[in-house]
């Protein structure tokens, strides 16, 4: 990545998660790293995921942002 580009990027997916790419850490409230096995992750934005902080596709069942 060139110096002018950010180290990580976040795509706000309409009706879905935050897609996070690049160089970043995910920490829990105690500052401990959240287990992570992939580079690019989807973070739940709708609140319904059973595997938070990650998205599990539940936003498709609960009509999240359907009317926006």
């Amino acid at each position, binding site marked *: 990545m060139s110096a002018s580009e950010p180290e990580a990027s976040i795509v706000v*997916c309409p009706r879905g998660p935050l897609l996070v790419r690049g160089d970043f850490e995910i920490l829990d409230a105690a500052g401990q790293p959240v287990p992570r*096995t992939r580079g690019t992750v989807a973070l739940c934005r709708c609140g319904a995921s059973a595997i938070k902080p990650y998205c599990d596709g539940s936003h498709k069942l609960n009509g999240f942002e359907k009317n926006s």
Partner: protein
Amino acid sequence: MKLPAHRGPASALLFEILGQDDLSPDLQGLNEAATLALPDTDILYDEDLQLCLFALYELHYAGFDEVSDRWEWHPGLLAFRARLEAAFESRLREAVGSIPKVPGTAEEIAMELFELANSSEGPSVADFVSRHASIEQVQQFLIQKSIYQLKEADPHTWAIPRLTGRGKSALVEIQFDEYGSGRPGKMHSELFAQTMAGLGLDTGFGAYINAIPAITLASVNMMSLFGLHRRLRGAIAGHLAIYEMTSSIPSSRYARGLRRLGFGTEVTEYFDEHVEADAVHEQIAGRDLAGGLIEADPQLGPAVFFGARAVCFMDELLGRWQMDAWDQGRSSLRAGELSR
């Protein structure tokens, strides 16, 4: 894998030819068998012809024990394959119908694909496995899936050198994850093998080929068809998008079904992994792969949506096949081939 048992005149001749080292065979009989069968068969359910297609494609993947690798690019076999492919593709196009106008931006394309994935009908194998399936039925389900999942992601990989730009980056990003992100033993195909082993099944690729019905072979052959033809690169991208978009939620149901039957994390890992992974992949595949491809080359739009609609259509048939069998108290596998 070993050559499968033949299922009719065309596959009988094909396997006889493949068993020889003489690379200048007489292919007339093979073509005659196709000429006889093609006019009045529904190729999606034709055991003989789908098995031929499967075997001809398999020459490009891992091949067969005791079959010369030289058959892969044999012009006569390629010509025979092309005849079957033409019939298969037009059957799929007829089922899919005309493609409505494709939107122009990646975001709109992703939305439309998500809607398509959501509107997919047909009985839910995932719901049934989650709540009711017996261990034997789960074994059948895994055997059905094994003919793709033990080489999961490979048909889409064919498309990588045929793409450029954002669409290519997206495909590589997804495939890297499918192949375990560089962690040995964590390829999705390997996780699937681990699940099969947990249910006492043979994890060798093609071990159950003789039990796999034509409709299942057709769903895998469709991926090879889309993956191996550059002109269908849009279709394989659309296929992957829908595949990813219809995976997270069913995967959590499959995992639940396995836990209901008393299996632990070793066995559920494949499905648990897909809950998380495909929630990522569906976003990348919809927006960056399919959307990125069409934004860069709007002419690919209809192909992407052809692939997307074709997988919805085939999924429905495959789901119905399995649920019909179980509703009638039968195995979803080919009769007489249940046990081995």
